[in-house]
């Protein structure tokens, strides 16, 4: 609690919360963009595993966002709420958003990975 009070001040958000908010989007964007770009390379070189590696790395990024969000969330005082007016309450809300985004985009990454096991990049 003491540490939270130290880092959460009016108008400020600790980096862990920012990471939690950004990680899901970032991971999914990287996954989609790199997979789309490297599909032809993967076919021409026969290195089909590249697409799976991208998936796994991006999944880890998204999960790390969820984990950091959860860690930050647990550090808030028990009295904080989703809609209170203090910086703690606002950060509490941000942590919820961060965890939801990270989890959702982790699911999207997993869903997007399914076709890679079924379809060949050369078709």
């Amino acid at each position: 609690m003491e540490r939270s009070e130290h880092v959460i001040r009016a108008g400020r958000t600790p980096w862990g919360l920012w990471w939690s908010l950004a990680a899901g989007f970032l991971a999914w964007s990287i996954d989609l963009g790199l997979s789309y770009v490297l599909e032809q390379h993967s076919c021409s070189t026969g290195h089909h595993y590249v697409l799976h590696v991208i998936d796994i790395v991006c999944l880890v990024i998204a999960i790390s966002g969820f984990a950091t969000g959860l860690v930050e969330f647990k550090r808030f005082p028990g009295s904080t709420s989703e809609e209170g007016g203090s910086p703690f309450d606002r950060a509490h809300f941000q942590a919820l958003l961060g965890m939801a985004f990270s989890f959702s985009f982790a699911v999207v990454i997993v869903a997007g990975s399914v076709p890679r096991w079924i379809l060949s990049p050369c078709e």
Partner: protein
Amino acid sequence: MAVAEPIIANDQDTGESELARRLARTWRQPTGIWGWFCNTHHTDIGLRFMVTAFIFLLLGGILAAMIRLQLIRPESSLMGPDLYNQVFTMHGSTMIFLFAVPMMFQGFGVYIVPLMCGARNIAFPRLNAFSYYLYVGGALVLWGGFLTNTGPDVGWFAYVPLSGPAYSPGHRADIWSQMITFTEVSALGVAICLATTILRHRAPGMTLNRMPILLWEKLVISMAVIFAMPAVMVASGLLLLDRLVGTHFFNPAEGGDVLLYQHLFWFFGHPEVYIIFLPGAAIVSTLVECFSRRRIFGYTPIVVAVVATGFIGFSVWVHHMFAVGLPQLSESFFTAASLMIVIPTGTQFFCWVVTIWNGRLQLRLPMLWCFGFIFVFLIGGLSGVMLASVPVDLQVHDTYFVVAHFHYVLIGGALFPMFAGIYFWFPKMTGRMADPTLGTWHFWLFFIGFNLTFFTLHFLGLRGMPRRVYTYSPDMHWHWLNVLASSGVVFMTAGLLVFLANVIWSRRVGEIAGNNPWGDAGLEWAMSSPPPPYNFLHIPTVSGRDPLWEDPPDQPVVVGLRDDIRETLVTQSLDADPQHKDEDPGPSIWPFLTALTVSAAFVGSIFTPWAVPIGAPPVIVTLIGWLWPRGQSPTPRPGGEAWVR
């Protein structure tokens, strides 16, 4: 002018009526024709956006009626192929660029957002006014071209090579390209104004977690506009260079790439769907809460859904290109993304239904339109899920099934919530209630006509009728379905006429509305209807997500803002704590003059590249006039500070 310290407040010894009088004098807008062009207040500019966009809805609707009239029987000679190409291109371009975005994003946003934030004006009011004039400039260019038989005839997305110099000589495609530049610069300007207003002009206490859903949606849309619009401006700009200067960006014979155009266009084009739909969803969230008489169910999931929709909307554009021959695996990525976007949209639907289910529903006129939206958009969403699948998409590609789908999405996502929003905020805008009987007639006529026309188009598409054909052979047996589809236009037209009659009638003799006729919770209902030029006598503070429902009678207000100059309060973006005071720049003719010079340069560049160097100096002169320092504001009177009282 930003000042480091809050300075003054000696209104405490004067009555509120005296304060209102002084504020009205300070914030009044100039009158007369000259004053009309100088006006920079958000309520006036917002209304202008809405009225202008509505005029283009009517014009686009007339074009749609012409299309349906042409197709009502086989081998019709009402229109030749050339005119028909212009008509369907103008219909699509008008509805998307001149109606849907300006109405749903710019019009409603500019009018409502500052009121919901508790601000006295929008941020950057001159940029806002400039954006309006530029939008009008783009609209005049497009329709001027059409009325002089130079209307674009290459479809609302103007694919190359059809729109390139080889297949589209003349200036029709150039006019389309420059209309894009006009309208997108306009949307970008408003996006900056709205995002800044939401982030820096919220009432103290309206922390990030207490922002109304509508503000969240407007913020997400503003960001989507800022990131999406440049892509289409690049596409249309490169197309113009290919046509005007002889570059080869999209010419494969010289190393160009036609698919690049499609990627650029749809990287804008799909987020555009959400730029149109999310404002509609924002209106529905607001209305569902108000008429269910309970707080919205699932505030946080809705915020997550809105932000996620904004992001995922950027990563589904390739589903518009499934038929161009991309690798199967690539298509599968975008199929997955396109299906995933159903989850956040479904989340919002779920939250609305639960709110209604658990509330005490008042089925007033705006709510009727919300139900229409939920029904229509749901059907559009379901056919969207079908089209996200590559095999289905390939079967119905470029048929009327796709036309039916996107009309369900766009009319469901824009027109139904738009009418809901107009009926809801009509009392705020005019001070009078719209007639509910006429409004109900309007709803049923439009709802029946819409479904008659567009549900039928699904079957026409499944029977193989392609889009953009100006006629068809009787042997295709599409005749009776086309008659049925065209008959719906009669109902929709009748509905729109009833609406116009309602607006004209109610504005003159409608029941007096009062401040908050619906008993809503938003700050926009905290002042008189229509709002005074200064919006709020005192900048309010809030202590919950639904201010007018939750705030105690002795809720503090901000005092100490000067009443002799247009002073506004700037707050922190996360916690809305007061940060400093700022001075609204006030009315000015320069945004209009700058829009004129920019328009002249844009129009000239349709014909010659020399328009850019020749047109630049007048633009620079008007910009200098716009930005010229006007000197210091009058010395602040000594006294109190701007604080929450």
